[in-house]
């Protein structure tokens, strides 16, 4: 090697007019990575909030109408879509964190466990302020296929098996209900022998219901038990700390 390799390198720098990249470019790249990691962490935490909301508001008290096993009911009605979303975003947090300047210093399991812990803590917080409910409802209201593909909703799209879920469109003078299910099909619900779980005031147009009973005609359902789809927000918070 040439004794003055430094001068050779300098000559090349001058000849090719090379200069150091500005600091802001590196800072910007760093901020973007951190921003992406934080955004993914927040989305993951929202997924946790929805998972908690769905689990706490699952129809545990009506499980025997769906299946004979409590555990089987739990397994079949878990919010897999949200769990998948959580796993995906935990993976993205991991990926982004590893690409920060000092991300390589942490071992896989430290980042993974750390991300899960922070997501759960933030998720509980988001659930407490009602984000879990708001997000689940917003998706159910705006995406027609959301309920059709969500296991905890799908269980209630089986009128033939005595389970029906939907939104109250009208209530007639006799107190009978018209209900629209997630496929847009209108049902006439006979509530003459019904047992109401929860506050009866929830039976009003626009409310979402679960109905247990039997299908008596093509679009007619005789209700034995009705309950609101989800507990009111205040009760949810109490359920969390009970």
């Amino acid at each position, binding site marked *: *090697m040439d004794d*003055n*390799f*430094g*001068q*050779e*390198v*300098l000559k*090349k*720098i*001058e000849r090719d007019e*090379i*200069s*150091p*990249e*500005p*600091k802001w*470019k*590196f800072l910007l790249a760093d901020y973007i990575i951190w921003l992406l990691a934080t955004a993914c962490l927040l989305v993951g935490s929202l997924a946790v909030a929805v998972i908690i909301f769905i689990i706490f508001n699952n129809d545990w008290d009506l499980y025997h109408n769906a299946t004979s096993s409590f555990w089987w009911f739990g397994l079949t009605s878990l919010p897999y879509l949200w769990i998948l979303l959580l796993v995906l975003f935990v993976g993205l947090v991991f990926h982004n964190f590893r690409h920060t*300047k*000092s991300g*390589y*210093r*942490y*071992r896989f399991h430290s980042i993974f466990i750390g991300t899960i812990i922070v997501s759960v803590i933030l998720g509980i917080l988001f659930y407490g302020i009602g984000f879990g409910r708001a997000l689940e409802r917003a998706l159910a209201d705006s995406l027609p296929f959301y309920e059709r593909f969500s296991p905890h909703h799908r269980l209630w799209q089986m009128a033939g098996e005595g389970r029906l879920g939907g939104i109250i469109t009208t209530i007639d003078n006799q107190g009978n209900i018209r209900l629209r299910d997630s496929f847009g099909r209108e049902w006439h619900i006979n509530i003459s022998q019904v047992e109401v779980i929860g506050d009866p005031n929830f039976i009003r147009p626009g409310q979402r219901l679960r109905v247990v009973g039997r299908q008596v005609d093509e679009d007619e359902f005789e209700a034995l038990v009705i309950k609101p789809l989800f507990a009111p927000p205040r009760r949810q918070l109490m359920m969390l700390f009970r």
Partner: protein
Amino acid sequence: MVINFIPEGKTDEELVQLTLKNKEFFSYLVNRYSIKLSRYIIRISGLGREDADDLLQDIFIKAYKNLNNFDRRLKFSSWIYRIAHNQVIDNFRRRRVRPGQIYWEDNGNILVKLLADDDVIQRIDSQIDRRKIYQAIERLDYKYKEVLELRFLEERNYQEISDILKKPVGTIASLINRAKLKLSEQLNKS
């Protein structure tokens, strides 16, 4: 032009700051690391002297371009070795060659260091033929050879190796331990 300047009194990090104000100072950093890095590149890439010098020039140019990205939590030496390591790996990719051999010159020091290193001495008979040890090292996976090279030839500590290879310190410690274990297994077999 830099006049009346004594680079020996300046740390690498100070030279980086000076270079950002005046590029002439960069030559001191280059001269401080060119021989060490050249030896390192030749060992891990197997390139000839001329190709290694070209690669070395690319490494310094890349370092110069990225000076504003130098992370002051690291030693400059770790940072420049990281660039060298990545550049060698890129070079392997460009040539579509898998990194394989590390060229351990027949230098008794490495064996002394390796054999003197805590538990390896208990597993390896120190009278074993030097050639056999080199052959055993050659049979190790590249990831093991790479950490042994940085630990025993470049004499880097675990934190520095972690910063160069961008792996957690714990992973580096496991790699070195496994490398030593595999080396003693190889030697026992032979």
